[in-house]
């Protein structure tokens, strides 16, 4: 693994937040053994994670959602609220849309299946660092449905909607094509496809935020309808 240009320190600093001891140990071993990665800490609770981040900000957080003292989503919110330059990979058992989409909406950059192999874990982190994000067919469909659904919002918020290119990409992903295959079908490089995916995640976050604003405006919580 090559060391990244322009980065100081030993490599990508990773914080693992996982309450299940064996998984935590396995992931710690994978990170520790990987070239170009540095394990910042491996903790089992939200509180410990906050403390660890207060000490030193990681580049990437591998985050389990179901923690003993709260949901991992709270930590993502915390990170996004303070605009901390820190990527989050959610550790999911099933990789199902319910847990993953919620985390992506909050601001997670991707997800990692708990039983992924060593290579897959490293590949996922690298993909995230390179500006990509994993997309499963089911999540692609949900992205399409969420972002294409006609909403009664101000015209300025229509910008959140999908471009034709993104829709095409999502349709390929939904049928099970890998990023490489999508790239070949659309005449794009792998990295471009991955960055499309990341852009889609970002749109989902914006979408969910604008939706929240919209709903808050509808409920009269936010006067003027702008945050």
């Amino acid at each position, binding site marked *: 693994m090559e060391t990244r240009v322009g980065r100081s320190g030993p490599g990508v600093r990773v914080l693992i937040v996982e309450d299940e001891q064996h998984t935590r140990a396995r992931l710690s071993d994978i990170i520790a053994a990987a070239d170009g990665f540095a394990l910042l800490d491996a903790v089992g609770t939200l509180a410990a994670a906050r403390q660890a981040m207060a000490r030193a900000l990681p580049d990437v957080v591998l985050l389990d959602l179901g923690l003993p003292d709260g949901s991992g989503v709270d930590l993502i919110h915390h990170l996004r609220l303070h605009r901390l330059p820190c990527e989050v990979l959610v550790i999911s058992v*099933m*990789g*199902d*849309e319910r847990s993953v989409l919620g985390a992506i909406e909050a601001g997670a950059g991707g997800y990692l299946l708990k*039983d*992924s*192999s060593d290579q*897959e874990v490293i590949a996922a982190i690298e993909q995230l660092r390179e500006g990509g994000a994993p997309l*499963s*067919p*089911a*999540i*692609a*469909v*949900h992205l399409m*449905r969420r972002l294409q659904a006609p909403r009664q919002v101000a015209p300025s918020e229509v910008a959140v909607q999908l471009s034709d290119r993104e829709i095409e990409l999502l349709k*390929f*992903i*939904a*049928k*099970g*094509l*890998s990023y490489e*295959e999508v790239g070949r079908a659309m005449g794009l490089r792998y990295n471009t496809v991955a960055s499309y995916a990341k852009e889609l995640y970002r749109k989902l976050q914006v979408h969910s935020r604008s939706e929240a604003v919209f709903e808050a405006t509808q409920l009269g919580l936010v006067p003027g309808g702008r945050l």
Partner: protein
Amino acid sequence: MRSRGHLLLPWLVPMAMLLCLLGLNRHPGALRWVLPDAQTRACDESGAVWEASALPRFSRADCQLLRVQSTQRTASWGEGAILIGGLVRDARVHVNGEMLRDFGSDSVSAANRAVLVRVPARLLAAGRTEILVHLRSGAGEYSYIGTLMFGPAQYLAPIAERSWWIGARGALVGLAVTFAIALFLVPITYTRRDESVYRWFLLTLASSSIYVFNFASAWKPLTLSVWAIAIHAALALSLWSLLKFFNRFLGRDDPRGERRIGGLIGAAVALLLIDGLDLVPPMLGWICNGIFRAGMLLTLLYLAALCWRARHRATIPAPTWFAGALLLVATLGVVDSLHVFGVFGGILFSYTLHWGMLYLLLLLFAALVFRILHALGAAERGRGELAVALAERGEELEAEFRLRREAEQARMIAEERHRIMRDMHDGVGGQLVALIGQAQSPGFGGAALQQQLRVTLDDLRLMIDSLDEACADLSVALGMFRRRLEPALAHLPILVHWQTAHLPDLPPAAPTVVLNVLRIVQEAITNALKHARSPTLDISAQWENGRLSIAVIDQGAGFVLDEGHGRGMASMRERARSIGAVLELTSSGVGTTVRLHVAL
């Protein structure tokens, strides 16, 4: 709607007229001229025009008897009562049998102007004074007998005369209106054939018009005797159609009554013909005419009674109006007949029945219009009520639909829960139990355990994917399945070709269908990997005519269908059967093909 005013209104006019008639009949002040039959005829032949006062006036200049002035003061009434003018050669005036004056032929004709005949007061009898005027001209000799009476008649006569004039013009206008109405009703009659009430109204209108026309205009299109038959036959026809009209209007079904009255009217018309065509001696003719008139009056009374009896059943008070109007017409008919037979002679002229018929016609029309308006109002109200009822029913239906939907949802949730439990029990549960059993056996190593656990986890993921809304589309479910499977397949020495990405968006399938399809495909792939030792594995899907066909093809050793693989195949078949899919298996020495056809 049923106020007293409505009941009173139609009776006001008849009562007023009746009172007027009763008050004037044989009133000592009434003035009339009674002309013997023969003299009337003589006047007709010489072109006499009958005016409102029933005094004849010659249109020809050779003989003229001017009307009696009724504006004289009572004291000097007799004087200046008679004016004789025109080219009369000779004229003699007798008062109560006494010669009053004998004009010499020169004295009248030379003047060619009205001559005032003074009747001295001594000649006037206290009650009744008869004046005989005998005129002789070049055309012949004519005698007129007049009766002078004193009292309020001198004031009422001009009123009666004016009302006659107004009545005749009114009747003309009325006829014009009735024809306008007829034009208006013709389309209704045509378009609403089942509502014959309009048809009978039209017939009544047409026949009555002929009768009323005789009153409205002095013009007689036929010779007098034929015209007299025609108008009275028209009266009979109008009464018969009136009966039909009332029965339809009041919703009565009485063919027997109609036949009887029809027979009566027919017989009356026959008698009318006998009289009118002079088929019998004059006396018998008068009797026939009398019976005809009596028949008409009886019909009118019958109609009045019919309407009166039906007044409670009607939604509008029209039957009460009809009954009143018919009674009035019958009364006027009596007056008219008495007039004709010379029995009655009030200040009112003849043709009273014509007036009555015109009044009746207008009333019929008013009732029809009222009925139409009433129907329109009822329709409006009905529409409003219908809208309210519809809205209520709509709400009920909506509530019912909501309840049903909720129940259906609850049922579906329960079913789904049951399915998930069964899947977990049969799938993950069964696999875990097997694992425990295997773990207890000696020689069951970590690698084997890991392998089994992975299978269990994969199955759990299949279950969860099948519950994902996005995977209701089997093309997405297959894509998901491929993404799940690919990392594991990547490490195996086999070339896997997926040809599932070209599928279009498919109609949504139930989770149980999705899960079973995925399990069958998984089983087929597992079998190929385990047993076939094939260098390649092709997984393809086709969507055609509402059917999804998935094929798993290897180029391995193949197997004999009846041996060895019984259990796995049986479970695949059972799964396919449970979702109504068809499973095809072919195997030979050069490979095995598993095809699954699912109708969506």
